[in-house]
C-alpha cells in the first residue's frame, strides 16, 4: 500500500441509483417520485429496435405518465440535436427527462436539461461549473456498461462547426436517479461490449492515477479495474452471461463513481480531441491510447500503478521497470484478445493531423488531473506512439 494518502479536501457526489436486474422496470415509479407527468424520452434508434423502450414506456404508463420520444441522437451527440430536443421538450410541455441508452443519448439528455432551464446555446456552457440553473428532473437508464454517464457530472457534446467535442462538467448535470439494469446490456454486440468495457477500464485507471483521487474514489477505481479484468473476456465471448454482464455493469458504475469525483487524465483529453476530429468510437480511442498514456504517466504515479498491477494479478515481485513493461503488455493483451487491434493510423489518423489533435487535447479539462504534466510535445509523441 502506498503511504502518501492525500489529506486535501475532497468531495464525493453520486446520484441516487438502483442497481440490479430489472431496475429499468422502476422507471415509472421514480419518474412519478420526481414529479414527472409528461416525459421527454431521449434514446437512439438502436435501443428502440432492441425493444427496451417499450419496457420503459409501459412502466411509465402504469403510473399515468405520458411520454414523447426523441430519438434523433447520433453516436457522439451533436449540439444541434440538443437544441432540437429542447424544442421538443418545450413543445410537448414536458416536466421531466428520461435518458435510455449509451453515453450518447444520456449526454444529449443532459444537454437538453441544461437548455430547458438556461438561456443561449449549449456550447455556451462548455467548461466547469458553467451552469447556474439546474435542469428539470433527469432519470438515466444506461444500456451499455462503460460510459457511466448515468452517474457522472460529465456531458460531451460535438461542436459541429468546429468538429470538436466539448466537455461540460457540472454537478448540476448529475442525474437525479439512475436505474442500472445489467439485463439491458445483453443486447450489446461483442465489439461494443469490448469497447465500452475498455472505456470503463480507462475510467478506472485514470481515476486511480488522477492527482485529484481520494480514498473514497480509490475504493471504486481499483475495484472496477479488477472487475473489468476478471469479466470482460467472458462478457465479450458470452453475451448472455448475466453474471459477466452484472459484473461489467458494476465495474462501469464503480469506475463512473470514481472518475466523476476524481476526474480523468490524458487518455480522455486525447480521446475527446480524436473523437471530435474523426468522429471515432470513444471506447475504442480510449483502448488504443490507454497503454501509451500509462507508460507516459508511470514514473509520476508509481504507487498507483503498483496497486493497479495487483488488481491485474501481476506478480508483486516485479521491479518498477518490469511492472511498467508488464502493465503495457497486459493492457495491450486485453485489446488484442478483444479484437481491438487497430492503431490510430489504421483508423485514419495521419501524422500531419497530430499537431492539431495535440493542440486541442492540451486545453481539455481532463488533462488537468493527469498525474504527469503534459505539454503539446508530450501529447504529440503519445499520438505518434499510438499510430
Amino acid at each position, binding site marked *: 500500500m502506498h503511504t502518501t494518502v492525500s489529506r*486535501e*479536501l*475532497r*468531495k*464525493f*457526489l453520486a446520484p441516487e441509483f438502483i442497481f440490479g436486474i430489472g431496475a429499468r422496470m422502476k422507471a415509472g415509479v421514480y419518474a412519478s417520485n420526481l414529479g414527472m407527468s409528461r416525459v421527454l424520452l431521449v434514446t437512439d434508434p438502436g435501443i428502440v429496435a432492441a425493444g427496451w423502450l417499450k419496457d420503459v414506456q409501459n412502466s411509465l404508463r402504469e403510473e399515468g405518465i405520458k411520454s414523447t420520444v426523441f430519438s434523433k441522437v447520433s453516436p457522439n451527440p451533436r449540439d444541434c440535436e440538443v437544441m432540437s430536443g429542447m424544442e421538443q421538450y418545450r413543445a410537448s*410541455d414536458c416536466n421531466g427527462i428520461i435518458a435510455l441508452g449509451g453515453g450518447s443519448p444520456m449526454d444529449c439528455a443532459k444537454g437538453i436539461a441544461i437548455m430547458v432551464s438556461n438561456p443561449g446555446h449549449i456550447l455556451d456552457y462548455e467548461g*466547469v*461549473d458553467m451552469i*447556474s*440553473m*439546474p*435542469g428539470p428532473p433527469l432519470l438515466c437508464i444506461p444500456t451499455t456498461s462503460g460510459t457511466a454517464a448515468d452517474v457522472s457530472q460529465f456531458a460531451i457534446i460535438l461542436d459541429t462547426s468546429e468538429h470538436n467535442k466539448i466537455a461540460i*462538467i457540472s*454537478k*448540476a448535470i*448529475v442525474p*437525479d436517479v439512475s436505474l442500472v439494469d445489467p439485463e439491458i446490456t445483453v443486447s450489446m454486440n461483442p465489439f461494443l461490449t469490448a469497447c465500452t468495457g475498455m472505456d470503463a477500464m480507462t475510467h478506472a485507471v485514470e481515476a486511480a492515477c488522477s*492527482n*485529484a483521487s481520494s480514498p473514497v474514489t480509490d475504493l471504486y477505481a481499483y475495484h472496477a479495474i479488477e472487475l473489468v479484468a476478471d469479466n470482460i473476456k467472458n462478457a465479450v465471448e458470452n453475451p448472455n452471461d448475466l453474471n459477466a454482464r452484472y459484473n461489467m455493469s458494476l465495474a462501469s458504475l464503480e469506475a463512473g463513481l470514481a472518475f466523476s*469525483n476524481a*476526474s480523468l487524465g490524458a487518455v480522455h483529453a486525447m480521446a475527446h480531441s480524436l473523437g471530435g476530429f474523426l468522429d471515432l468510437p470513444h471506447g475504442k480511442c480510449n483502448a488504443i491510447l490507454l497503454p501509451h498514456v500509462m507508460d507516459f504517466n508511470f514514473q509520476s504515479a508509481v504507487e498507483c500503478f503498483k496497486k493497479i498491477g495487483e488488481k491485474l494479478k501481476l506478480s508483486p515481485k516485479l521491479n518498477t521497470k518490469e511492472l511498467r513493461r508488464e502493465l503495457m503488455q497486459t493492457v495491450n493483451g486485453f485489446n488484442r484478445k478483444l479484437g481491438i487491434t487497430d492503431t490510430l493510423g489504421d483508423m485514419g489518423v495521419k501524422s500531419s493531423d497530430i499537431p492539431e489533435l495535440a493542440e486541442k487535447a492540451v486545453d481539455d*479539462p481532463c488533462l*488537468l*488531473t493527469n498525474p504527469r*504534466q503534459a505539454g503539446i510535445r508530450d501529447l504529440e509523441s503519445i499520438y505518434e506512439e499510438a499510430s
Partner: protein
Amino acid sequence: MDNSKPNLRDKILGLGKNSLRKSYYLPLRESTEGLQRYKALLDQTCDVICLLELPSLNFIDMNQSAQNFFDIDEFIQGKFNLLNKIGSDCKKTISAWIDCAFDERNIPLRMNVKHHSPALGSRDIELNLSRVEFSKVDYAVCVIHDMTDYRKVLDALSQSEENLRITLNSIGDAVIATDRNGIITRINPVALELTGVTLPEAIGQPLNKIFITVKSSDRRNPEDLIFSNTNIRHFATLDNHSILISKDRKEYHIAESSSPIKDDNGKIVGSVLTFRDITLEHELENKLFQSRKMESIGQLAGGIAHDFNNMLTGILASADLLQKKIDINESAERLVTIIIDSATRAANLTQKLLAFAQKGKLISQPSCIHEIIKNATSMLGSSIDKRIDIKMALDADNTCVSGDPGQLTNMLLNLGVNSRDAMPEGGRIFISTRNVNLSESCPQCGFMGLPPGDYLKLQFGDTGCGIPSEIRDRVFDPFVTSKPIGSGTGMGLAAVYGTVKDHSGAIEIENSSDKGTIFNIYLPLVEQNSAANSSKTHNKSECTLPQHECVLIIEDEEVIRLTAAEILHELGYKVITACDGIDGIEKYRDHQEQISAVILDMVMPRMNGRECFQRLKEINPEVKILISSGFTSEEAMRNLNIDNAAGFLKKPFTITELYEAMLSTSGISSEKENSHK
C-alpha cells in the same frame, strides 16, 4: 499539479462556489417567497378573490377577504362551493354562464346583486366570474367588490345631481355651464330651447358651437364672453345688444352674463353663462323709441308746416288777387296759374307732412255719432266672427259731436277688435248711446277732468273673457296687452284713449270680469244744426261784393295780413288790421261798432289767438270770430272752445276759401245773402 489554474482545479475537485449538485433550494426559496408575497397581497386586498374548480365551482383557493366574506373559519380546498355561499337569485345566472364559459370567446360574467353575508349583513356586491386556464386545466376566477359604500356615495351624488338638475331646470333664465376649456358640461331646458339643440347635442361640445351670437349693431361676432386671452374672465356682463342665433336659424335678442366657477381653492374650473330672451322687450323698446321719434318728427314737421302754411297763404292769395285784379295777357295768366297750382301742391304736401306726424290730422267738424257707429259696426260685422252678435241701442237724441269721423270710426273698430279677441268662441257686442249732463260733482268731472256740460255717453260692451286684473290699471298705456306674444300690439286701447282725448272726451272701464267688459266713453256734444251745415262751393264769378262790412284781421304775419286785407278789400269789405293780439284788442275796442267780424290767427307773439279770442268775447260775447290756422297744437285746440267760433279758415287759403269762410260766418253771410236778395 497545475498551480496556474487553481480555481479550475478546485472546481474539478467539487470545491468551487457553484460546485453544487442540482439544488432547487435557492430558486425554490425565491419562488416560495414570491408566492407568500402574492398571498399577503391578495389577503390585504379588500376585494374577495377566489379560484374555483370548473364546472363544480368548488373553491380551490381564496384570499382572507373571501374567508371573511363567506364566513369560512378554516379553508379546506374543495370543501366549499360558491353556489352554496351565494344567494339563490344569482345561481341561475352563474349556471348559465358556466354553460357558455367554455366557448372560445370566454365572456366574463359581471352581475350586481344583493348579498347577505353572515358576518357583514346585507351588502351590494358586484360579482365577476371569468375562466382562466392554468397547466391546461380550466378554472374560474371569482372577484367580488363590495359596492355598498360606493353605492351610498353614488346615491347621494345622484340625489345631489338631481337637486341641481331640478334647480337648473326651474330657473327661468337659460343657463349653460362649461369646464375650463369651454366645453359644455350642463345646459338647462330654457337654454336648450333658445339654442335649438337637444341635450345630447350640447353636452361635450365647445360653447361657441352651440351658443352662437352676433352683435345686433353690426352683426359681427362679439368679443368672447367666457374667455379673455384663453383665460376665463372673472366676470363679464355684456350689454343687451346680442343676438343669439339658434340651430334652426331663429334669432333672439338676449341679455347675457357669465361668471367663473371656482373650486374651494379659488382656482377657476369652468364658467357659467346665463342669458334670457329679451326679444319682446327689445321690440317694445323699439316701438317706444319709434313713437318718441315720430313725436319729435311730428313736432318738427308741425313747426315747419306752420311757417310754410303762412307763406303759402300769402303766395296763393296774392296769385289769386293778381289773376283777378289786373288785366293780364294770356301768357301772364298761364304763369299765375302755375304759381297757384304749385302753391296748392305745396299746401297738399304740407298736409301730408302733418298727417305723417299724426298731428294736425284732427278735423274738427260736427259729426253725427250714430252715423259713425253704424258705419263702424257694418265694417266690424263683415270682418269678425259670425258667432259674434252686435246689438245696438242708439238712444241719444243729440248725436252731434265735434271731431274727426275717421278717427272716431277707428276708435270703434279698435274696441271691436279687442272684443273679438276676447271672445274666440263667439259672443255679443253691444253699443249704446245716450245724452248725459255731467255736473261739477259727478265722478267723471272729478278725476277724469271733464268740464261740466252735455255729453254723449257711448257705452261699448262685450261678453268676452275680460281684462286681467293685473293689467287693468295700465290697459290704456301703450304696449300693454293680454294677448299672446305676437298677436297684439298693445296699441289698440292706447289709440282709443288718444282719440277720446283728442276729442276732449274721457274713457273709463265700467266693469271687467270673466263675463265681459264695458267701456264708457264721454264726448262733448255740440249743437245739432251745426252738424248739418254742409259746405257750399262758390264760383268766384258768383262772388258778389258785400257792402259796408268791416272786418278786423288780427294776424302777425305781414304777408298774410296784407294779402287777406287786399282780398277782403277786393270782395268789398272794409278792413282794419292788427299785428298781434294786443293790437287786435285795442283796434276792436276803437272800432267795435263798425266791426262785424274778426279773423283771428291762433299762433301769435305777445298775445296768442286763444287769449285774444277770450278777451274779444269778454268785450262782446256776440262777436263773430273766424279762426285762422294752418296748424294748432293739440293742446291749444283742446283748450279752445272752438264751437264758440263763427268759423274756421284753414291756411293757406285761396280767395274762394276766404270768401266761403266769410259766408259761413252767419252774421256776415246772412247780411250778405240779404244784400243779394
